[in-house]
């Protein structure tokens, strides 16, 4: 396992206090009251471990700054970061779980009518979508998150997104209950 694979971009532990003096980092890890000193190269890596850059991005930057071979820097950086993780000096930067997206159920059949959108479902009667559900249905041609759907609909209606989003959520829940939309 690489240092990045499980937890996303590496980030310095919040329990680590550090000072850079003459290019060397002195670190105090309050968890366990351990001290560490990094040489200048290791300090250059340490300074980049802010949770925004992945290992590869860090290695590319270091290879550029130091004029070093990228493959070698990549391997050294991975090794060093793994060592930091082992010593408890990194904390995981969990990737945010992807927001659920919504789309029409596969095989949906519908037809626009003067009264609204008529959708065939596994129910005795077709379902007639009216009002705001009509443009919502049109937007469900591909998986989209609620926030995006609400944003587009609020823009079209000229109202605040906060007013629209609860209705979007309720409609999606209703459609999901009828098997007309799929959540992924």
């Amino acid at each position, binding site marked *: 396992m690489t240092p990045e694979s499980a937890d996303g971009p590496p980030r310095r532990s919040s329990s680590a*206090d550090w*000072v850079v*003096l003459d290019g060397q980092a002195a670190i105090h890890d*309050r968890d366990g009251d351990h*001290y560490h000193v990094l040489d200048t190269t290791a300090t250059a890596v340490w300074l980049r471990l802010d949770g925004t850059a992945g290992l590869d991005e860090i290695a590319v930057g270091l290879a550029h700054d130091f004029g070093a071979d990228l493959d070698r820097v990549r391997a050294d950086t991975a090794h060093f970061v793994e060592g930091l993780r082992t010593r408890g000096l990194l904390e995981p930067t969990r990737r945010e779980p992807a927001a659920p997206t919504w789309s029409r159920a596969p095989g949906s059949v519908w037809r626009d009518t003067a009264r609204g959108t008529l959708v065939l479902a596994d129910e005795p009667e077709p379902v007639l979508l009216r009002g705001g559900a009509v443009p919502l249905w049109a937007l469900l041609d591909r998986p989209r998150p609620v926030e995006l759907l609400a944003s587009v609909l609020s823009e079209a209606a000229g109202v605040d997104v906060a007013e629209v989003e609860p209705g979007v959520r309720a409609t999606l829940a209703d459609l999901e209950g009828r098997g007309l939309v799929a959540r992924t």
Partner: protein
Amino acid sequence: MTPAPAPRRLPDLAVDVRTDDDHVGRLLDDVLAGLQDDGRHEPATAAEQVRIDLRDDGSYELTLDDSPAARHADPRVAVGAVVEHLNRRVLETTRDAVLVHAGAVELEGRGILVSAPSGSGKTTLTAALLARGAAYLTDETAVVDAATLQLRPYPKPLSVKASGHRLFDELGVPLQGTGPWLVPAGALGARTGAPCPVEVVVLPRRSDHDHLESLSRAQGLVELAKQAFPLGPTARERFLLLGRLAESARFVRADWTDPLATAERLLEDLDTAP
């Protein structure tokens, strides 16, 4: 009853130390000489009181703020308990400062901090620096002001262990009885120094030879931070504050066997430093 002496001045506290026994009074005056009002401050008002009273059974009773705390048969031990109490109160009451397990001296406005774990020779090296002309700031508990990063004087008596006896013999300072001994810096001819920035942090280590070696500031900071008392500011604040101190200090690892020779080299080094 002897007249009440002026309160003893600690970094952030004044303590009234009294006794009803002339012999103990002389011992206290000798040992606590460095803590007497030096006229550089507003007169202190004692917030606490420590007493040593001779009891009918010949023992010396230590009283802390009207509460009997201990009895000792030996007056020197009773005086030692007072010093120990004062030091504890310094740790408990000193504010806006980082306290470091270190000795400290001053030379012409430049501070030398002697910091290391117990048994490394802090007191011996501090005494040697005093004997070679430095002014005294403290032994064992150095006070680094959080706002100015300067060393604040806390001229308690030096606490000399058996391992330091030879130096005092060599300097002609008699140590009576069994140790540890409390020796006022004045016995070494040293005056009390003034607040000053830390220019050199010496990290002593007993050895079979004398050798000075520069350490990187990062390495030196780590060694110094290990000796900070876990008191006062938060751990994070302490470390960052010592980090600021380290930005303008030099760090010297001092392997030593001859304290006077090492002290002379350290002072020469200070003289020749830019």
